[in-house]
């Protein structure tokens, strides 16, 4: 695989890192049509491809060489229409608005051409230099769908190329068409009826010129009440607000349906007309096995057992037993425990006379013996196996089905089924998941999801260690699980009540179930692991250094002595304070610290339950906190942390008291 050459540009502003002189290709299209797969084909770099609508949340940039000429390529988050609904759609639209793209690739799923052509029409109408890319031609062919590309070209007045981004078929032809692209003269236009056309013609000259979209397209967006365009137009000095308002009122009066209905309706019916001759679907066919399996996943009676099987084999057996058990056991006890750590310590004793330096590198809390050991021997296998399992599940397209199953429950906690992606990803890495909360539609949902991730969703490293600790004590495991689920639901429920806002709506495309491709799973796991390691290894080393500093300056002892009474209050041994202190640096780090404590038998059953519950709830790790700050703002991030910190200990104390009062010994 070639080295990833894409640079991620900040998501919300649509800024570019376009280099002077290069021709610029922008890829747009509906969610889940394979834009990212095509991006990887064109640039030879890698961005995550998945069978889940809306995985791309950031704009990816890369370079593509065609016949010696270099192009810069931008991959954008999926959009259904030029009129944006979600944050990601706005990002994509703003890129088209701001940039003068040399070629715009409108990528559609060939078998769904009928409904996706409407976006292509809108782009054409905006005078963008569009090439229509019919992706997934192989899937369409398998369904016996005939598409007449020549007829489409004639009707639309733009180049049309059928490809399969996954197999690479047709990509060479596409490249040639990109290179030889010349602006087309007579392209398709939608006729919206006299009333709308009248308003558009009156408004178009008043729209800003010289931006990425034509004045006609801007006028269409303006009459559909696009807030950004409205602000843009109204801020222009030469426009009179009275004229704008009177035109809009007049338009509304003369139309029997709302503008927001008429305009997309006409776009779609034009698209349909074009498709009538060029797109020939076959008669109905027998449902395939994949379709039947898909039905089972969405039927509670069969879907819940399927979910249980996925969780048992995917999470418990593969991540828990194999990752956290077998591999951690091997790396931690054999490699580090028997060979590496003793060897390092011996070397240090032999060659490094200055004891603080010895402590920095090795011994109890050194960079190698603590930082690197935790990162490589405990965290890596657990997170790695989790990402493999997650990538396989993601690639099959199971997650939207899960979203459909949990929507009703999620509604109770102020979220909707869509939040299933950040929530399940949180079991892998809460930091990554916090970034992905961006795909949620309302601010309220994003805040609730961020809080729940920080509070009640243990990341895979934490989960692995926690499961490892309670594996021998099933009762403690049950208490932990019940409390975590309870707190997740309760806090979600209360936050949803406390925060005003509309009930979120759930709507989602359900992509077909597909067989996961090993190559894609490998690459996806690899990139996630790479991201994860870039993020955590420095943190682990930093944490080791901080702990070392804390130790030699005695601040560490002071903080531990502050924490010790808290430990006493929730019924834990004093030594647990160290683990919680580690937890400040990384959640999983703290978990790993407790793991050490439990291994030497310092915890009773009740203490074990209290410890794992408190630690799971305990503050987000530094990386997650920084991500919270980036996504939600400093104030919100601090408020959440200030809530979580006492809350974790409060619940810990409560569990302790409850167990004591009821006389239960776990």
């Amino acid at each position, binding site marked *: 695989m070639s080295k990833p050459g894409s640079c991620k540009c900040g998501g919300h502003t649509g800024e570019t890192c376009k280099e002077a002189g290069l021709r610029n290709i922008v890829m747009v299209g509906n969610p889940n049509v394979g834009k990212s797969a095509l991006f990887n084909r064109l640039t030879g770099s890698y961005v995550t491809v998945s069978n889940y609508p809306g995985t791309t949340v950031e704009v990816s940039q890369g370079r593509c060489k065609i016949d010696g000429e270099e192009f810069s390529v931008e991959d954008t988050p999926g959009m259904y229409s030029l009129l944006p609904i979600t944050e990601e759609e706005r990002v994509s639209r703003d890129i088209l608005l701001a940039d003068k793209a040399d070629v715009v690739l409108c990528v559609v799923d060939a078998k769904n051409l009928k409904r996706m052509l409407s976006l292509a029409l809108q782009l054409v109408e905006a005078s963008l230099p569009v090439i229509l890319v019919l992706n997934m031609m192989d899937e369409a062919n398998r369904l016996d769908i005939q598409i007449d590309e020549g007829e489409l070209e004639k009707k639309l007045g733009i180049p049309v190329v059928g490809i399969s981004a996954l197999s690479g078929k047709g990509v060479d032809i596409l490249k040639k068409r990109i290179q030889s692209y010349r602006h087309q003269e007579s392209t398709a236009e939608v006729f919206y009826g006299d009333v709308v056309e009248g308003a558009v013609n009156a408004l178009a000259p008043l729209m800003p010129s010289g931006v990425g979209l034509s004045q006609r397209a801007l006028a269409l967006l303006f009459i559909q009440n696009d807030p950004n365009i409205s602000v843009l137009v109204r801020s222009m000095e030469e426009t009179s607000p009275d004229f704008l308002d009177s035109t809009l009122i007049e338009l509304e009066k003369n139309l029997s349906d709302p503008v927001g*209905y008429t305009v*997309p*309706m006409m776009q779609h019916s034009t698209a349909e007309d074009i498709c009538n001759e060029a797109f020939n679907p076959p008669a109905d066919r027998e449902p395939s096995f994949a379709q039947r399996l898909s039905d089972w996943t969405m039927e509670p009676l069969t879907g819940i057992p399927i979910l249980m099987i996925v969780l048992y084999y995917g999470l418990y057996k593969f991540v828990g037993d194999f990752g956290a058990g077998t591999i951690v056991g091997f790396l931690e006890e054999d490699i580090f425990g028997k060979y590496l750590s003793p060897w390092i310590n011996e070397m240090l004793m032999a060659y490094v006379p200055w004891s603080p330096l010895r402590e920095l590198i090795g011994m109890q809390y050194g960079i190698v013996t603590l930082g690197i050991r935790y990162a490589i021997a405990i965290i890596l296998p657990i997170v790695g196996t989790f990402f493999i399992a997650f990538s396989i599940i993601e690639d099959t397209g199971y997650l939207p089905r899960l979203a459909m199953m949990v929507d009703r429950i999620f509604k109770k906690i102020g979220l909707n089924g869509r939040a299933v992606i950040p929530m399940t990803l949180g079991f892998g890495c809460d930091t990554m998941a916090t970034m992905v909360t961006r795909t949620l539609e309302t601010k309220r949902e994003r805040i609730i999801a961020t809080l729940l991730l920080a509070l009640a969703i243990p990341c895979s490293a934490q989960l692995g260690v926690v499961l490892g600790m309670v594996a021998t004590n099933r009762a403690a495991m049950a208490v932990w699980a019940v409390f975590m689920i309870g707190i997740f639901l309760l806090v979600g429920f209360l936050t949803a009540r406390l925060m005003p806002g509309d009930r979120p709506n759930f709507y989602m495309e359900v992509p077909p179930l597909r067989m996961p491709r090993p190559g894609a799973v490998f690459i996806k796991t690899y990139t996630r692991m790479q991201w994860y390691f870039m993020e955590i290894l420095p943190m682990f080393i930093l944490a080791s250094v901080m702990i070392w500093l804390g130790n030699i300056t005695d601040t560490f002892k002071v903080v531990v002595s502050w924490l010790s009474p808290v430990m006493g209050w929730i019924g834990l041994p004093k030594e647990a304070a160290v683990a919680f202190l580690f937890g400040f640096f990384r959640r999983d780090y703290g978990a790993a610290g407790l793991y050490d404590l439990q291994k030497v038998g310092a915890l009773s059953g009740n203490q074990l339950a209290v410890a794992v519950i408190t630690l799971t709830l305990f503050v987000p790790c530094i990386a997650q906190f920084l991500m919270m700050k980036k996504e939600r703002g400093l104030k919100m991030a601090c408020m959440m942390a200030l809530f979580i910190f006492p809350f974790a200990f409060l619940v810990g104390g409560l569990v302790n008291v409850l167990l004591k009062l009821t006389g239960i010994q776990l």
Partner: protein
Amino acid sequence: MKTNERIEETLEKLWEQLEENTGGKLLPEILDPKQNVFLDTLVEKGLVEKFQDGIRFTETGREEARLAIRRHRLSERLFHDIIETNQDDMEEAACQMEHVVKKEIEEEICRLLGHPETCPHGKPIPAGVCCQKARLSGDKFVAPLASLKRGEKGVIAYIKAGDSKKLQKLMAMGILPGNPITLTHAFPSFVFTVGYSQYAVDRDMADAIYVKRTVHDHAK
């Protein structure tokens, strides 16, 4: 309230209790005193009769009650679907309107609403002559997606434009009037197929999509 209106109201209440709840007979004690006073009038007019220790509709009475309840629920549908008034206004307006609706207008309303089978509260609307005709002639019924049976097919009739955001989302995804639609799951969420795409939505969204049903009439 005029006597006729009071009779109609009472017939409706009796319908709910006799035909939709207990069925058959009803003890006079269950009726509240106000209705009880009326009972004599109803008996006098030949709408109900004493039966064992309770009462039951006469043939005429049942028909009168059926039509009254039909007008009431159709009026509710009208205010709910077309005029989009809120719940309280809907009740009040429907209560006034049902008494002034003539037979022809009733059928017109019924046709406009696409011969609905249930009121906004989900209670059945007794079928009128027009409904039966429409059913026989293979005419389509318009109903929200949420009220379709699993596996049922139809054509999207319109998307309720009450909430423009919702409309925008559905239309953007390609869920458009005129397209054939199949409901594949109704619980825990609604899943349906349009073209080659499958979508999952919640009840709120499913209620906004109105579908012309293809009627296979052997069922009823």
